[in-house]
């Protein structure tokens, strides 16, 4: 029957040893699964121990980021976390927290839905007064109900999926949907005199699909731009020359690449190699270095972003300054601003309600949203959506040139959605 009955002892023992050591390591480091961030200031790490202990310290406000420190979108998670740290530092120094200090701990979801749900329920059971949800849409959808049931305010970032806010009143989303500032791009195309565009989008991405099949056709129609070819391809596609051929048919003045990951740079490079001279535009996922491998072929690509260091809003300038102080030599990106905005809103809520219990956080968030807006790193953000639990932001239109983003247009604050001025 099974030869498997025969265990090779040297190998078996080795395997056991590895398992034992790993499990022992895990067991001993159990508290560090919720490790307190210490990148920003030594003060926050010094109170780390008390934050994870079950007795509530009088002077601290424990919160947990259940986020993607490793895995698929770790590169986003790390930036969001940095932004949060900057906001914690600002809030703790401002004194608006009634003499208390926010202590932020992190639980890594590894971009895995199962891990995320378990970590979220751990966070809900901990003494955290609020949680910051994971970044991927499927993680967010799976974890938000746990927070809702645990009656903990869950402030989501990045996850743009529809239906998230319907889960319940404890769920907030403080990253403005890019639908709200994508019109800046369309507006700019019209100003450039574009009449015909072709489009490729990731057909398995809900945001990009909705944007490309519902919203863009509306906006372009209003501005007299026609969409010729609109190609939906799965984001697992790895071969683009056939798509590039299709995109070039009809010689459009602009081509939209609403894809994620390396596909943007690959398609842009292939378009330029085959001699395409028109404008290339894409969505905000081009930010944070996706275009870097494109080299000079990526020059001139335009896209809307939530935040640009060149924004002139006072709160944006403050964020930029604080970030550059905390992380010398680094330029803040949209993901940093997102984390900063979420944490700043939380701090403002505490300031408003004066209570740092879970119910107090909810009350504070409700008061904050009733006020209509708050000043975040990405400018003045306006509360919108169901029960005002999400925000819209002004955004900006940027152009990629020689490895960096340059702001072309800054959005108008205080609007639900950016207007199509060229109309």
């Amino acid at each position, binding site marked *: 029957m099974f030869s498997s009955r025969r265990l090779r002892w040297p190998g078996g023992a080795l395997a056991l040893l590895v398992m034992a050591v790993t499990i022992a390591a895990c067991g001993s480091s159990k508290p560090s699964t919720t490790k307190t961030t210490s990148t920003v200031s030594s003060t926050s790490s010094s109170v780390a121990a008390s934050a994870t202990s079950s007795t509530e310290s009088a002077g601290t406000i424990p919160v947990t980021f259940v986020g993607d420190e490793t895995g698929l979108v*770790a590169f986003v998670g790390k930036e969001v976390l940095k932004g949060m740290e900057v906001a914690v530092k600002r809030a703790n120094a401002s004194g608006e927290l009634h003499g208390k200090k926010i202590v932020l701990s992190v639980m890594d979801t590894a971009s895995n839905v199962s891990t995320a749900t378990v970590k979220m329920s751990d966070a809900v059971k901990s003494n955290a007064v609020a949680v910051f949800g994971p970044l991927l849409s499927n993680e967010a959808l799976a974890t938000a109900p746990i927070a809702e049931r645990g009656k903990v305010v869950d402030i989501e970032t990045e996850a743009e999926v529809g239906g998230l806010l319907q889960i319940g009143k404890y769920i907030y989303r403080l990253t403005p949907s890019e639908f709200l500032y994508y019109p800046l791009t369309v507006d700019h195309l019209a100003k450039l005199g574009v009449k015909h565009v072709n489009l490729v989008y990731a057909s398995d991405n809900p945001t990009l699909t909705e944007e490309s099949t519902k919203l863009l056709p509306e906006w372009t129609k209003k501005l007299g731009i026609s969409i010729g070819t609109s190609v939906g391809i799965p984001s697992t596609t790895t071969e683009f020359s056939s798509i590039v051929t299709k995109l070039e048919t009809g010689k459009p003045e602009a081509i939209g690449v609403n894809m994620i990951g*390396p596909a943007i*740079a690959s398609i842009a490079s292939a378009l330029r*190699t085959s001699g395409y001279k028109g404008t290339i535009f894409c969505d905000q996922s081009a930010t944070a270095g996706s275009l870097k491998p494109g080299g000079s072929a990526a020059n001139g690509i335009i896209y809307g972003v939530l935040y640009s260091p060149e924004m002139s809003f006072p709160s944006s300038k403050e964020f930029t300054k604080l970030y550059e102080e905390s992380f010398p030599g680094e330029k803040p990106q949209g993901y940093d601003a997102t984390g900063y905005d979420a944490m700043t809103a939380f701090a403002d809520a505490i300031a408003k309600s004066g209570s740092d219990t879970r119910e107090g956080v909810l009350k504070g968030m409700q008061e904050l949203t009733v006020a209509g807006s708050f000043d975040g790193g990405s400018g003045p953000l306006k509360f919108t959506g169901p029960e005002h639990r999400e925000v819209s932001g002004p955004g900006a239109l940027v152009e990629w040139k020689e490895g960096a983003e340059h702001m072309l247009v800054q959005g108008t604050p205080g609007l639900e959605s950016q207007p199509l001025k060229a109309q």
Partner: protein
Amino acid sequence: MPGAPAAGEMLQQLINAIVFGSVLTLFALGLSLAWGTLDVLNLAHGAVFIFAGYLTYELTRQGALSFVPALIVSMVGAGAATVALEVLAFRFIRTRFANKRQAELSMLVASIGGAIIIDQVVSNETGATTFGPPSSIFKVREYHLTGSAGITNIQILIVVVAVLAAVGLDQWVRRSRQGRAVRAVAYDPVTSGLLGVNVSFVAISTMFVAGALAGLAGVLLAVNLRAEEVAVGQDYLLTAFAILIVGGVGSVRGAVLAAYLIAIAETAVVAYGPTQWRDGIAFLLILLVLLVRPQGLFAKAQFQRA
């Protein structure tokens, strides 16, 4: 032909399909070799493929190496990574597990473990974002054929290299002394040993060739795509499954034909069909082929052990 845009576009799409088929061929050759000869379905093949692209990126971005040396080092690196898996895991499983199914499963899982490790290295070293070798190492330019149809120099290189690699591998396996030994080991390792063949050396060199082929494909594709990320390896791996099954395991010619067949089918869907179903094409082909011809389109009948 010139002047008719539809015809020009069709020609362009045909060129695209041939280039894509060549990339798939390069990717699938190593996978097919390892499975056909050593019964190893190496799920780390995709990770090794990306690993080679990453090595080229690391070696060239500071201007340390130019294209050809970087290509060679990356191929050796990819081969070494595959050999490491062979030496650390596959070899033990092959020689110690009496139950064939158990061995098959264990090799699958060990290769998944290998893929996880390699992917982790690449993703940690690149910050899990997109990466690609700088455009300066290989100046991509397009040659115009007729009308709007064109082909770039890297695409020509891919086609040529794929054809050479396929013919070379086919001839090596069929005609050379070492190729004979590889086929003998695939059929009966014990008897091969009795004939003087150093079985573990043959296994290691076969895995090295398989890995180096993945490396070759990885580097050429990294240059062609300009940008890639870890997940790309898996996307290719899934398509390669289809190639192996459609072509018939162990048949180099079958793998090549299947690669071009799938490339043409996928290109046709992108060009003229419901593009969002593109992913379904390869899987649908697998199911269809298996229903009609379970041993693959091009595999010969198997000889039973006498």
